């Protein structure tokens, strides 16, 4: 027998490579690079979230207003009528002409990205367009980080959170067992966790039950409800401080053994909080979370140290999720669902079963067909096909690619398409043998002639697959991926590999046994 040629050696290497690197995926071993199953196969939640960026602008404006108030109070600049307009401007009036220079310099130094315009003693502070864009971008980035933190802290296995396109967020959470769990996770993600400490407007508080929202607004106030009793509170719209100065939040228990959340403020927050409580003794301060009042205790004395407690008849599970949300930070802007796909674990298992079944049956059918029609030539093609399957798995494992249900369909389809090359080659060889060519000549010419047709055919299928990959979303990308890898791998196995095996076996072939080697029946009249 002739020594091994380079094509066979290449094929054997590819086969070994394929088997070795697909083992971790096939045995699902702990170590080694593996194919990840898509959410449609292992079950899980896939969501595409949008973000309300105008709210991010509004909340940035609010914090600018809070800074203005704090700076002026600190520098004892007398002002009046500080309010937000249209959610993107802050207006105020100075009472003393002498303060104008000092105030403008102060604002310019301390508050970045804004333009101050003056009309008499009336001032308007507005964000620059660049600052607005930065705020929007920041809101998305911050939302991605925050949601990722929350899901990680929740203890879920390998959640994916990523920015998609300009303004969307992709969230993928595998391994959710029940619909109730899924809802809990969605609520955790959605939680704005926007904490505010707000002063009650004690001068007008008595009239709150009859006051309209518009009237409250005209005083620079806002009416919010208690989370449990729905009792109304009239609060100064601009908060004393917000959750951005929070450093930690933990679940604790009060003296009635009810779950509460204890949180700590950073140095700046603790100072603001201490200063405020010192000035507001006897007045009430509301702890507001996501625009709901959780408690509004009367301040008895200055509170230093920056430790605050939220109580609100929590269930333990609720307090736990809320603490996670507070710790991982507020969402600067609320998110909403644009697309959601959720698959239960049992359906995923069924899909794996069904698609594996189709793959196995399709594979057996093709193998039997090739064997019966081409005899040994069919066996050679089948060896290449098996090599192709291993190569697909190995390449996907190495890249840690995701296998989806359409991806499985892509592999099944590849099984049908990869042998096409061998059919074309074998038909060519048969034709040349009919013309009376010797076996080596028929094989070499057969490969030469068939190559361009196979290449062109594969390239056009690849073009469609690449377009599909570029424009497809989610699971469909998996189809384009497995099909592309399958086609490329088939060029190696079905063309180079089988060619090598023919060359290797050639000395054993003779024209008396064409039926055995190429499945040519003698009555077909070979010259």
């Amino acid at each position: 027998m002739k020594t091994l040629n380079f094509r066979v050696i290449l094929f054997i290497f590819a086969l070994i490579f394929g088997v070795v690197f697909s083992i971790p995926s096939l045995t699902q071993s702990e170590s080694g690079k593996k194919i990840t199953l898509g959410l449609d196969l292992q079950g899980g939640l896939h969501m595409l979230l949008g973000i309300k960026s105008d709210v991010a602008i509004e909340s940035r404006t609010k914090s600018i207003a809070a800074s203005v108030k704090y700076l002026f109070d600190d520098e004892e600049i007398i002002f009046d009528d500080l309010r937000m307009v249209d959610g993107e401007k802050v207006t105020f009036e100075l009472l003393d002409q002498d303060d104008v220079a000092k105030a403008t310099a102060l604002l310019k130094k301390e508050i970045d990205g804004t333009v101050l315009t003056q009309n008499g003693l009336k001032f308007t502070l507005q964000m620059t367009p660049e600052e607005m864009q930065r705020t929007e971008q920041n809101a998305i980035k911050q939302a991605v980080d925050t949601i990722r933190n929350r899901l990680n802290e929740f203890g879920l296995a390998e959640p994916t959170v990523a920015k998609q396109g300009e303004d969307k967020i992709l969230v993928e959470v595998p391994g959710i067992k029940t619909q109730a769990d899924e809802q809990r996770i969605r609520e955790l993600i959605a939680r704005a966790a926007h904490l505010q400490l707000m002063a009650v407007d004690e001068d007008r508080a008595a009239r709150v039950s009859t006051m309209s929202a518009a009237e409250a607004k005209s005083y620079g106030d806002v009416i919010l409800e208690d989370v449990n009793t729905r009792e109304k509170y009239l609060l100064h719209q601009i908060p004393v401080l917000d959750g951005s100065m929070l450093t930690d939040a933990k679940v604790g228990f009060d003296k009635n053994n009810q779950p509460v959340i204890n949180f700590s403020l950073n140095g700046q927050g603790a100072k603001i909080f201490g200063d405020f409580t010192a000035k507001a003794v006897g007045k009430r301060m509301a702890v507001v979370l996501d625009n709901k009042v959780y408690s509004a205790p009367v301040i008895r004395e200055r509170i230093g140290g920056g430790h605050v407690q939220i109580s609100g008849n929590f269930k333990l599970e609720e307090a736990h999720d809320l603490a996670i949300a507070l710790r991982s930070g507020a969402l600067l802007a609320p998110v909403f669902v644009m697309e959601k796909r959720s698959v239960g674990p049992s359906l995923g298992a069924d899909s794996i079963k069904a698609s594996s079944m189709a793959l196995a049956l399709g594979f057996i059918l093709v193998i039997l067909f090739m064997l019966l029609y081409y005899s040994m030539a069919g066996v050679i093609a089948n060896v290449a096909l098996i090599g192709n399957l291993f190569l697909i798995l190995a390449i996907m494992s190495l890249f840690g690619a995701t296998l989806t249900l359409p991806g499985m369909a892509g592999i099944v389809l590849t099984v049908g398409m990869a042998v096409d090359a061998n059919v074309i080659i074998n038909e060519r060889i048969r034709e040349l043998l009919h013309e009376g060519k010797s076996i080596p000549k028929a094989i070499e010419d057969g490969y030469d002639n068939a190559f361009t047709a196979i290449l062109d055919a594969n390239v056009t299928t690849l073009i469609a697959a690449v377009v599909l990959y570029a424009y497809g979303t989610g699971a469909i990308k998996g189809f384009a991926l497995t099909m592309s890898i399958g086609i490329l791998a088939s060029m190696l196995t079905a063309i180079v590999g089988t060619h090598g095996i023919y060359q290797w076996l050639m000395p054993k072939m003779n024209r008396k046994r064409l039926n055995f080697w190429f499945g040519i029946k003698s009555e077909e009249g070979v010259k």
Partner: protein
Amino acid sequence: MKKPLSLMSQSKRFGMLSITVVLISLILIFTKGFNYGIDFAGGTLVQVKYEGKAPIDKVRKAISVDKNYESASVTYFGSDEEIVIRTKMSSKALGEDISDKMTHLLQDTGKFEVRRVDMVGAKVGSELREKGLMSMFLAILGILIYVSFRFEWRFAVASVMALVHDVTIAMGAVVLFGIEVNLDTLAALLTILGYSLNDTIIVFDRIREGIRMIKKPDLASIIDESVTQTLSRTTLTSLTTFFVVLTLFLFGGEIIRGFSFTLLVGIIVGTYSSIFVASPVLMWLGFDVSNFREKEAEKLKREKEKEKMRAMYESGTL
């Protein structure tokens, strides 16, 4: 040598058949229209599996209690234990969404498990539709460019016409059988674009070769001979792919049935068109054999000249 089939003399008949089927498909597409699934139309799909037979009438009644879901459709899915509820509504809220509400409405209908929820907002739906059309267009353009580059332009036009023929008929079948059009249906159509060309290329490759090898002046008999020679491989390659797609259709599960059905139609039509559509179009486009041969001969001559020059250069005579 097998006796060549006389296909080209019959080409008018096949042409009429193809044109009729394409026209019927177009009429179906424009009158009945696609049954867009939630991927493209937006909405919510909830797949529910019961222990035992699904009480479909009870489900319909339970859902219609909520005015929002009065127009929801409830159908069996795969087996009589499983149902799918479809509504045009979608919710933006992350908290309690439509699937949670459905679960609530269904709680007295028996023991069940929610196995799948797909919800696509209207905006994403229209975005996906745009992207889908764009991808079809780009795929056709890419293939057109590649085939023009590899073959003569008439081959490219003929193969793309065969392609449009295949995709149109596949779409017609999708409309006719009321298959829901989702992302996977689009993936199937794009695969047909790539795959149906395979057979056409095998035939064209042979015709190109036939023009060089077969010493006959008229294209029709060259095509007849080439198509006859490739007939077995065209049918065999389609057959292997047909086998696997058929197993996918029969055993691959309900979720990808629309996908595998579309592919099945595409493979059958694609095989037909590569034999009976692509080659006649080539002839009608006025492909000139002698002109092509002259050009080929010239190309060959130029190459020989180049080689001669190179040989002279290398031997130092130039």
